[in-house]
Structures are given as C-alpha cells and as structure tokens.
C-alpha cells in the first residue's frame, strides 16, 4: 500500500502543483521516488510531528494540499491536538498519512501499534477517514479522495503485494465494497486485515456457512446507506479490524445497526485487551487478538451455530 500510495501521489503531484509531501523523518526506502521527482515539494521536517501538522496547516491556508507522513501512531496521536485545532478547525485540506495501521510494526512493540487511530480521527465530523484493504484499493482511494474539501486521514499498510481476492481495487467514498457470498453471515473488514476476513469467509463457505465478506475502507463519514442495505439482509454480522473494538469499524457498524433498527446481531472482532507489553509478528498479534483467519472461522461458526 505504501508503494502504491507514493506512486499515485507522484502522479497527482505531476498534475497539480499544490500537492506537497512532508515527513517526520519516516519513509526511508519508500518516499525517495517522490523526493527525487519533486525535490522542492518534499520536506523532511525532522522528528517533530506537532510542528509538521502546524506547518501543513499554514501551507494549506495558503492554498497547498500538503500530505504529512509518518508511522500511524506518530502522525495521528502525538500531534492530535494540532490536527484538531489545525486542519479540522480551519477546514483545510491537510492529508494525514499514517503507515502501518494496526499491528504492521508488530515486533516494534506497543508504541508502534496503531489500534486507536481510527477512533480518534472519526470522532471529528469534518474528517474523512480512509483505511484501504490492499494496495490496489489504496491507489483507487487516493485518486478518489485526495482533493476532497477538508482534512483526510489515510491509514495505510506496508504490504504492496497481497490483494484481497475479489476486491479488484474497487473504492468509492461513502460506499462499502462487497466481495459476495451467502446470507448466513456478513463479515465486514477494514484495513489490511481484510485479507484474513476474506480468507475466513472462504473457509466458512467450505464448511457450509453461507458467508459474505465486505470491505469498509471509506470509514468516515460512515457508509451508512450501503452498510444498512447490506447488513439488513443478515441475522449475523461480524466486524474485523486491527484496532480497538471501541471506536473503530465495530463501533461504527454498531451505530448504523442501532440507529437504523436493523434486526441483526453484531460481533466485534478486534483488540479488546489492554496493552501488556507483549509484541511479536503481525501474524502472532492477529492470532493473539482473534483476528487471524482461523480465529475468525471459529468465531464465525460459534456466531452462526452457537448463537453466541
């Protein structure tokens, strides 16, 4: 996703001089193509995320469309108040780009695990939040949203090879992309963990559960219309996210189900344990928090057959 994002950003920058890229000294071996192509529009502002967001606000006020880049935790949480009082309060087109959403920086530990970034960003009515599922969708999402009014938060993964089968790079702001399937169970996923959700749905279908997988990359504003239309056809809905179950996709889905009065039961799969200092690979952490394929299959079977 990171590579696709940078490649697409270069195309956008070639066509529009307002596009700038700022980084908080992150992106070695990733951002160089942009820096080399547009040396006067690339700024490594040093390890100073608050200042980076302040600078971006000043640039946007003067008419630029600055993209600010760092690891998802660093770019969303350290300068959170500068995001709130800057591009959000001023309604300016600053693009906050967080790489490594969820557990992508697994072995680096909790400081690098972005498991609340979507929650804090989607709290703001004026903020667009986009969390693509794979690199093809990341490209489509950037093309569709880079020039929207107001600020955007992009939650990216690092994987530029894996694709979610059936997604085919589809993205539309405010929409949910269904991957198809039957009517026993809907599994709705956000971000790169969607590949686990899609694999679980495939396995469940092999075990006789008519299961539909879908991707919600356009997280905020909530894709309420699509979600209601989709979830309305199921008795059981599971959400899957490498994020706390509070505040992210699970919460957003719960809000839509409750507010629309949909007759379905929701099971939120995500991080529900407090941080305890344990780290490991992304795969290990997905298993630990029950969002790997096998855990999701077990949860799906329990939901559909056990009524849990």
């Amino acid at each position: 996703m990171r590579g696709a994002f940078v490649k697409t950003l270069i195309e956008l920058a070639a066509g529009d001089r307002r596009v700038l890229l700022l980084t908080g000294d992150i992106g070695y071996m990733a951002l160089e193509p942009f820096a080399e192509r547009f040396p006067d529009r690339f700024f490594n502002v040093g390890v100073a995320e608050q200042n980076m967001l302040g600078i971006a606000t000043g640039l946007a006020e003067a008419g630029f469309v600055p993209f600010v880049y760092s690891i998802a935790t660093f770019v969303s949480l350290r300068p959170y108040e500068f995001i709130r009082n800057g591009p959000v309060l001023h309604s300016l087109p600053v693009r906050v780009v967080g790489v490594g959403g969820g557990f992508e920086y697994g072995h680096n530990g909790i400081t690098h695990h972005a498991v609340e970034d979507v929650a804090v960003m989607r709290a703001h009515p004026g903020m667009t939040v986009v969390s693509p599922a794979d690199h093809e969708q990341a490209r489509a999402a950037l093309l569709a949203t880079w020039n929207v009014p107001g600020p955007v938060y992009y939650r990216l993964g690092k994987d530029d090879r894996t694709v979610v089968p059936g997604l085919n790079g589809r993205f539309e702001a405010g929409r949910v992309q269904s991957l198809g399937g039957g009517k026993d169970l809907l599994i709705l996923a956000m971000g790169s963990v969607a590949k686990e959700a899609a694999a679980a749905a495939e396995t469940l279908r092999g075990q006789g559960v008519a299961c539909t997988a879908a991707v919600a990359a356009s997280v905020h504003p909530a894709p309420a219309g699509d979600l209601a239309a989709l979830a309305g056809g199921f008795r059981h809905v599971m959400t899957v996210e490498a994020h706390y179950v509070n505040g992210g996709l699970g919460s957003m889905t719960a809000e839509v189900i409750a507010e629309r009065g949909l007759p379905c039961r929701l099971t939120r799969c995500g991080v529900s344990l407090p941080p305890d200092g344990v780290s490991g690979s992304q795969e290990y952490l997905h298993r630990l928090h029950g969002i790997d394929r096998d855990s999701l299959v077990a949860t799906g079977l329990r939901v559909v057959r056990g009524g849990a």
Partner: protein
Amino acid sequence: MNEETRGVTPSGIRKIILEQSYRAHVGHIGSALSVADILSVLYGGVLRTGGDRADRDRFALSKGHAALALYAALHLRGDISRAQLDSFCGEGSKLGVHPESCLPGVDFSTGSLGHGLSMAAGAALAARLQGSSRRVFALLSDGECNEGSIWEAAMFAAHRRLSGLTAIVDLNGQQAFGYTRDVMDMTPMADRWRAFGWEAHETDGHDAVALRRLLSAAPAADGRPRAVIARTVFGKGVPFMENKIKWHYWPMSEDEFRQAMAAVGGAQ
C-alpha cells in the same frame, strides 16, 4: 501611516479591552493590555493586510488569550464593526475569548498555546514556494515558550531560512500561576532564540518607534528568521493591574473599571 490605520492607537486598544472585558465580565485583561502597543504598531501600518489578497501578510496570535486586543485593533482599523465588537463573548458570536479564523481578519484560530508559531512557519514556507513577498508574524507569550512545539517550529524555521517569519515574544514575565522566573525560567530569552539560529532583538515592548523599526526591517540577508523579544509590563497602562497575577484571569468590578478607564484616558 495612512488614514485607515491612524486610529489604531495603543490607548484606543486599551480602552476597548477594558470596555469589552468589563461588559462581558471576563478576564485575560493583563495579557491583552501588555500587547496593546505591539498590535498598534502591527495593525497601524506594519502589516500589509486587508481584503482577500493572497499576498497579504499573515498574522498568528499564538497567545490566543489576548484576542480582545486583536479584536480592538481590527475594529479600530475598520475590519470589524462596532456591533461585531459588542458581540464579544455573546451567544453565537465569532468573537470569543480566543480568536477564530471564521472572523474576517483572523488568519489562524488559536487558543491552545504552542500552536501558532508552527502554522506561521508553514505560512512562511508557503510564501517562499509561491514566490510571494508576504511576511508572516506570530505573537507569542513568554509562558508559551514552555511548550516544546515552539522550539520545534523555531528549529524548522531556522533550518529552512524562513526570513519572512518574525516571532514577537511578549516578555511580560507572568504566566497563569505565577511569575515565569518561578514557574519555568526562560532567561536569557533572546539567547535561546539565537541558539536556535534566529536573529534576535530585545526591545521595550511599549516603545512604538523601536517596535516599528524592528518589525518593518527588511528580512535578514542571511535568511535567519527574526525574533523580537519585547519586554512588556503585564497589565500595562492600568497601574493597579501592572505586574499583578490576579489580572490574568480576574474580571473587573465597577469601581475597578472606572479607575482603569481613567488610567487609560477613557472618559467614564
């Protein structure tokens, strides 16, 4: 100074600060009074502003709690009406205790200390990228310089040689809970800015001639951004408020208001 800006006098600003804070029964009086002379100089001819011209100078009141002084300057220059001014702290008003960019004449919303200088640095970078001659000014409080983000912005502006950026530090020696020397001693302030790569000047923050000379000076030839360390008196102009911590937050009684207005030459 032209006809339009002649009326932006320090005493005019102080009078409005007292009238409006008394009417709205709010504080931050001392902090606003200490920058009246600085804003009089900025809005009395230094800032090339007005209208929607893209190349107008930008100003960030990084010490947003002195917004009333800014509103006074904007009113005296004719940017906001008397009726707007009288809405200060009213329901649904665009004139709150801290300034919002939805109010014409306010470039940046502030109120959380440590934010304004970063936005100003971005504005100065934008001017360079756009080949614009616009200058950018940020007015900081000395207590605000406790914030690490101020020094992030200071490092960046010096590294990028943003000579179009001027930071004015209102060195009134007080912050919310006490004297800065007791809370977090920032001396020597000018040397700190110099150490971060800025051209720093110390001046009497109530000396209009000295302020105008420093704030109108051509950008440094070597590209350094400029810090003007303005030594001010907290509550300047109202003797019973001067250097008294109480007037950081306290509103005035009727008697205090009468005394204060008499001190600044306003008839009551």
